[in-house]
């Protein structure tokens, strides 16, 4: 596992990375608050603790690349550039949301950014991702496709079909497993007979690697290398990011399946704290600069709430829209 890497990080990149992670963290804390206040309903899955994965991976992409995520996708959506207000409004169900409020938290889409969900059937988007990569290959475009999923998804048949097809067709697809050790309440040892997940990619002939998903430098470095490999060789790559979710699976979860002490232990490796320390220790940021980033993020998140609250409900007469393309 790559832990102590020396990926070149200058002040501007460092600031950008820490800012993106802070933004996800604060945005989601606010979303949780608004869920408790019942402005947001349905399922809400928080990414808190896993920020280094989304920010690290997404920072290695270009606008030509396609991105497909799970229902735990607020982080990726923010990094991809969907405005926080549009995401918050979507979670409120307002028509000013990025999907007119039709999808909610689990279904964020923005075609202009090649951001294809927000997919809530576990592993259901892996075959879809194959198609995006296949189309890019057939049309000789430069883009690659990135598909995020949890380790729980790797027990589904669709994961195995997708791996085999990607390797067989040699298509430019980056599989990113966000291994947060739990699929709802099922710990990885109860869902996988082989828990070194990268071995599964290798068994399909796909270059595979596991990385410390709490260390954004490691994630960024590994993704950069993965993307280079894909662009050079044309075929798929499998990246496992070992991480942890600090919060419950969703807002309905009583967390009977894990000890509080385990969560506390992982919180000592908070990706934002670790990277902030790195920046300060290497003279890439000062405490004052970090504090002012926090403030900026806070304002941005508050603004997203104002935007969502000012939003409007789609008229019920439009209920039957978006069923067929006319």
């Amino acid at each position: 596992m790559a832990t102590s890497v020396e990926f070149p990080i200058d002040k501007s990149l460092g600031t950008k990375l820490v800012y993106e992670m802070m933004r996800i963290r604060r945005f989601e804390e606010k979303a949780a608050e608004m869920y408790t206040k019942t402005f947001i309903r349905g399922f809400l899955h928080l990414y808190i603790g896993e920020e280094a994965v989304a920010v690290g991976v997404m920072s290695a992409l270009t606008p030509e690349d396609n991105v497909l995520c799970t229902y735990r996708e607020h982080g990726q959506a923010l990094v991809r550039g969907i405005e926080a207000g549009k995401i918050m409004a979507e979670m409120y169900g307002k028509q000013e949301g990025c999907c007119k409020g039709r999808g909610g938290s689990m279904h964020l889409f923005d075609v202009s950014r090649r951001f294809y969900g927000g997919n809530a059937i576990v592993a259901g988007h892996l075959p879809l991702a194959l198609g995006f990569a296949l189309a890019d290959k057939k049309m000789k475009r430069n883009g690659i496709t990135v598909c995020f999923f949890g380790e729980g998804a790797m027990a589904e048949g669709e994961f195995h079909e997708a791996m085999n097809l990607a390797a067989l067709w040699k298509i430019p697809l980056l599989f990113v497993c966000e291994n947060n050790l739990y699929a709802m309440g099922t710990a990885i040892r109860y869902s996988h007979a082989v828990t070194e997940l990268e071995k599964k990619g290798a068994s399909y002939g796909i270059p595979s690697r596991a990385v410390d998903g709490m260390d954004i430098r490691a994630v960024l470095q590994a993704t950069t290398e993965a993307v280079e490999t894909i662009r050079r060789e044309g075929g798929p790559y499998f990246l496992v990011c070992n991480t942890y979710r600090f919060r419950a699976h969703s807002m309905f979860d009583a967390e009977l399946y894990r000890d509080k002490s385990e969560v506390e232990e992982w919180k000592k490796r908070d990706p934002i704290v670790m990277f902030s320390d790195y920046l300060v220790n290497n003279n890439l940021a000062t405490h004052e600069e970090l504090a002012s980033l926090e403030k900026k993020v806070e304002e941005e998140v508050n603004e997203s709430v104002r935007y969502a609250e000012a939003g409007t409900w789609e008229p019920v007469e439009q209920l039957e829209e978006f069923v067929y393309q006319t």
Partner: protein
Amino acid sequence: MNITYREAIKQAIREALRSDEKVFLLGEDVGRYGGAFAVSKGLLQEFGPERIMDTPLSEAGFVGAGIGAAIAGMRPIVEVMTVNFSLLALDQIANNAATLLHMSGGQINVPVVIRMSCGIGRQLAAQHSHSWEPIYAGIPGLKVLSAGTHEDARGMLLTALKDPNPVIIFEYTSMLNLERELPDNAGAVDITRAAVRRQGTDLTIVTYGTGVYKALDAANELAATGLEAEVIDLRVLRPLDEATILESVKKTHRVLLVEDAWRSVGIAAEVSARITEKAFYELEAPVQRLCGVEVPIPYPKHLEDASVPQKEQIIEMAKSICAPVLN
């Protein structure tokens, strides 16, 4: 005693586990998590991991395993977390569970019970709000049950486990916290007949699932306006209990069919056809349907509510069907 729908299901599972050691519960997060909707909370501690088996996310795999184990002599209760994910196991159910008896010339029967929670109304958006009862109700070889009351949530499982055929039981997530009176000795119930949940003379409302309590509430309000609606809970979506429906039509001569599932090719469509075939001359008015609007279910509350039948609409349609009686 008043108990929740959730508790009713749990009591049934517990009773089944206690009374037959071949019974075991198999599904995602049924054990350590306590069930996605806390239905099986505590059962792992009570019965141990051999009988409360957590599975990985592998719907085709564990549903197929349940089918195989049932053939091989066990009595698995397979829980598919929600009906939405059951499509991944549909091949196992439709191509294995439903066909083996026939293909083997009667040698292999499949006594598996598959429970799935379903329903609309918790703002879970399009991929998590499916009403797939009509898909399963269209498959010969399956018995398909819908627990629209606490009594059935408590009783259907026990009878299903005694049945030599594959039985699918639909449970409704939006009813889990609902409390109703249930006698202490409530237990196994018949799984062949529809139930007349309310007697009436002016109109028959046929429904199932979450429609049952809604229709009963609507019928009570209609009574205040002088209309006596008979409410039929289909309970068994396959094979349909035609006799109970036809008998009611002969009495009331007017029919309103209510279901959450999409209008086209739904259970209501089938019931309507049967009535037209067998009781056409009994009808005083065209059979009417109040079904799900044909749109993937949207996330916002107001649009979600507008997608499925509401009590007010049942009342309104009942009145319009009965307009000649009222005048």
